[in-house]
């Protein structure tokens, strides 16, 4: 049961990574990337690493996304 959960999360993770590189809209890519970080955080919580999961949730999904959003608002939104 636990292994099925693990495999589902890993598949979701890989799907998110593929979606990130497929998305032409940088804003969308950043949003999907923050989803990727959250799934990663779930995996780490499941693997018994709550400290790392917390850091990833706050830093990876929160602050990094905000920084990416600022950078996009300062540059261009669409990838050519």
């Amino acid at each position: 049961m636990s292994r099925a959960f693990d495999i589902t999360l890993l598949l979701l993770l890989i799907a998110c990574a593929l979606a990130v590189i497929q998305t032409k809209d940088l804003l969308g890519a950043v949003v999907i990337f923050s989803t990727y970080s959250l799934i990663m955080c779930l995996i780490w919580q499941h693997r018994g690493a709550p400290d790392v999961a917390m850091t990833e949730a706050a830093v990876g999904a929160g602050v990094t996304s905000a920084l990416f959003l600022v950078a996009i608002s300062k540059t261009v939104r669409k990838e050519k």
Partner: protein
Amino acid sequence: MIALLWINLDYAASVVLFCIGLYCVVTKNNLIKKFIGLNIMETAVFAFIVALGVVEGGDAPIMGADANAPFTNPIPQALILTGIVVAVSTTALALSLIIRIYQHCGTIEADELREME
């Protein structure tokens, strides 16, 4: 080998993610997209190292009244904790460099920047 990979599925997933990130870094033209790819690579390595410390049925390494025996390995976790914070620092620096490049050259596409020289 497939059977061995099935056992070590977590590690294999990290390798796949690493390759996806590498593909993004190599083929994408947009600098921000390249950097997202680099972030995916980073996260894949973090996931691999955390997976190394996992013990079957292990609890989080927090000693308390109701903690019981197998604990996951704390050292990879501490390593990755540091790594994530350094990763956000490098992300901030790279993004500010990208903003600066855009202010200077008006584009963040790698091939257009190469033509400009």
